[in-house]
């Protein structure tokens, strides 16, 4: 019910996972410094990009995100010493899987941002939103024919009280 009418321009929903120590603080800094980026970017705080479970990314896409961004500390600057490397390994493999599952590569990106890089983080968000806007909505759940699943019973992952997919 939230699908924008075809006449209004498409505004993607981008979910960005942030690291408590670097990119989340960079986002705070962007706020403090009133640096603007598109409102379609929504943040989730993790303690480390290494906490990013691939299931979170898949869930986000399944629940309506048009793109997912993994943000974290620069290589060798991890608050937890080397855990962003594990995040990088998962990112690389998950990226391959997502592409094979039919998600365009631009829809899953990674961005490095230290706590001081509010400006850079905002710029990266803006760039990603632009890229995804030109790709159009992901919206695979509403493809003609695919929507046959809507008759599925209550066991569907999204609870009935939740609305369908935004975007």
């Amino acid at each position, binding site marked *: 019910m939230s699908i924008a009418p075809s006449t209004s321009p498409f505004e993607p929903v981008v979910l960005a996972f942030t690291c408590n120590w670097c990119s989340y603080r960079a986002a705070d800094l962007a706020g403090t410094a009133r640096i603007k980026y598109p409102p379609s970017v929504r943040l*989730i705080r993790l303690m480390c990009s290494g906490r990013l479970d691939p299931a979170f990314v898949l869930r986000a896409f399944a629940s309506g995100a048009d793109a997912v961004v993994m943000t974290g500390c620069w290589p060798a600057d991890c608050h937890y010493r080397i*855990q962003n490397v594990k995040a990088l390994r998962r990112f690389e493999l998950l990226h391959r899987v997502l592409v094979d599952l039919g998600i365009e590569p631009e829809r899953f990106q990674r961005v490095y941002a230290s706590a001081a890089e509010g400006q850079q983080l905002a710029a990266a968000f803006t760039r990603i939103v632009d890229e995804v806007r030109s790709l159009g909505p992901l919206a695979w759940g509403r493809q003609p024919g695919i929507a046959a699943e809507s008759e599925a019973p209550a066991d569907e*992952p999204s609870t009935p009280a939740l609305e369908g997919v935004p975007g």
Partner: protein
Amino acid sequence: MTRAGRGAAAPAEPRVGVYVCHCGTNIAGMVDVEAVRDWAAERLGPHGVVVARDYPFMCSSLGQELIEQDVREQGLNRVVVAACSPHMHEKTFRGACERAGLNPYLCELVSIREQASWVHTDRDAATAKSKAIVAGGVLRVREHAPLEPLRVPINEATLVVGGGIAGITAALEIADAGFPVHLVERQPSIGGHMAQFDKTFPTLDCAACILTPRMVTAGTHPNITLHTWSEVTEVSGYVGNFTVKVLHRPRYVDTDLCTGCGICEEKCPARVVDPVFEAGIGYRKAVYRPFPQAVPKFPVLDPESCIFFQRGTCKACEKLCPTHAIRLDQQPEEVTLQVGNIVLATGFESFDARRVEPYGYGRLANVFTSLEFERMSNASGPTGGRIVLRDGVTQPQTVGIVHCVGSRDRNFNAYCSAICCMQSMKFAHLVREHTDATVYEFYIDIRAAGKGFDEFYQRVQDEGTIFVRGRVAEVTDVLHLPEEAKHDGQLIIQVEDTLVGRQRRIPVDMVILSVGLEPQPDAEEVARRFGITCSSEGWVIERHPKLDPVATMTEGVFAAGCALGPRDIPTSVATGSAAAARIIGRIQQREMALEPIRATVDTERCSGCRICNDLCPYSAIEFDEARAVAEVNPALCQGCGVCVAACPAGAISGTGFSDAQILGQIEGILMSTNGTGGSPATEPERAVPA
């Protein structure tokens, strides 16, 4: 597949209260907070929201009381506050919940200020996003479980890294409070840059006169252990309980026997340029104390310049030492220290003026750096305080002082070095005091914002110093004919005088480059060693630039002085004291509470696959061979969550950031916020009007 997450089950049916803060107009100016409140009450009702309110300042005592009252009267067992960043006020609202008898970890603070009102310009979009953020918080907090903070004991000892004025100040404050301090300094003596200076601005009091008493006190304080000529090589552990390895480089002097008489230095035949203390314009011996008031008083022997180490013969110092204190076979020694807190006062390094090639430093003899001039003007420096050209004899008749060398320059450092206006004007005064020279100051802007600073600016102007507003393009010895023929042998400063709006070429005898301040070249490596973060330039990042300016992101590691960024002596001292005060407070608490964000293994479900075993940089994951299961040692776990995300069996869960919490937040954030059903125009059923 079921939606069951892996987090702890909620104790009772969630009853969630949502509190939307206006933050004055900070939030309300860009977000329709009433709409967010009404939407939460109506649309999140099925998810357990029983009360939703808005309030001008949730963090005020009245705002907090509102939450406390609802928890008590409405039986709330979950609270979501939509306000600022959790890094700002998470503690505040957790405290409010705790006062009302609710476990503080059942409160979630979501940021609609830093993440919405401050970064967006479209009110409708910012409001819709705020709703999504609130929904994320509500669906997340449903999955929260009550937690108890982890308590760690605080070791009384403190490590201070860097023996400049900031480090000395921090060490003295902590030591005076009765707690042990290890003060580590890379150079042979403590004192730092301040010991090199002659006068300090704007009062012109003698740097040595005010610094050396403090150095002596630090050197003799019963609670301070000095580790000079030493470096920290390894840091492990966490707040309250750090283990630090310090490498003592060999001094080649037995400090138990040495009396500091100076005979070795006097008799040493090797004389080399001293690039450190004398800034390259003076000499020292191979065995030396950088300056007479050095603390400790013991010399060090530099094997790079020592004739014995280079050619195998000499040993003049060994032969002539009256107490036989020279030890040419001394080896490096590593000591291990246990400390509870750390202060990084690692200071700065001067910008290398050779990098600004148009200014000719290193090529043109009579171009000097500010640090060279500091030594030259110092009565105990290489010229005995005489202001002379590079020939060591001639007094300059005209001196040009160039501001912002390497600072406010996108080719080098974009930032202002904070001290260089004032030091440049101090130089002008000193030149005028010692010579009859005409002095030019070439500046971009004069930044004299400190106490007594602008008065000093007026004074230097009154003394006759000529101020030229413009960035110097070039310092050259190439003359333009015919008009410059008479200036052969002088230097020409080419500058656009922006006040008169034309190019000028000003001949001078001497140029002083007021160089900027840069982080230590190994700042990033040091930051990594101490587990903190640096800005892209290399300055230590504060926990909060205004409200927490001496703490770092890492618990137990503080910073002071120029390690945080360019600053003058009073501010360096202030930050040293501030770091000390923070640490003394902690030591007196004896223990400290840490966020209980930890991983745990459900050993029933662990199959012993050993995927996780090698993933923890803190070695918190142990494998029990007998039971063939992995276990997490909570004392070592730092809560990053890498193993939680790695466990193929889903047997590892993480408190505070469980799968269920994060998946809930994802669902909430992606919930439709602009659909037709939740039009804020309709009167919400459950809304409690404010």
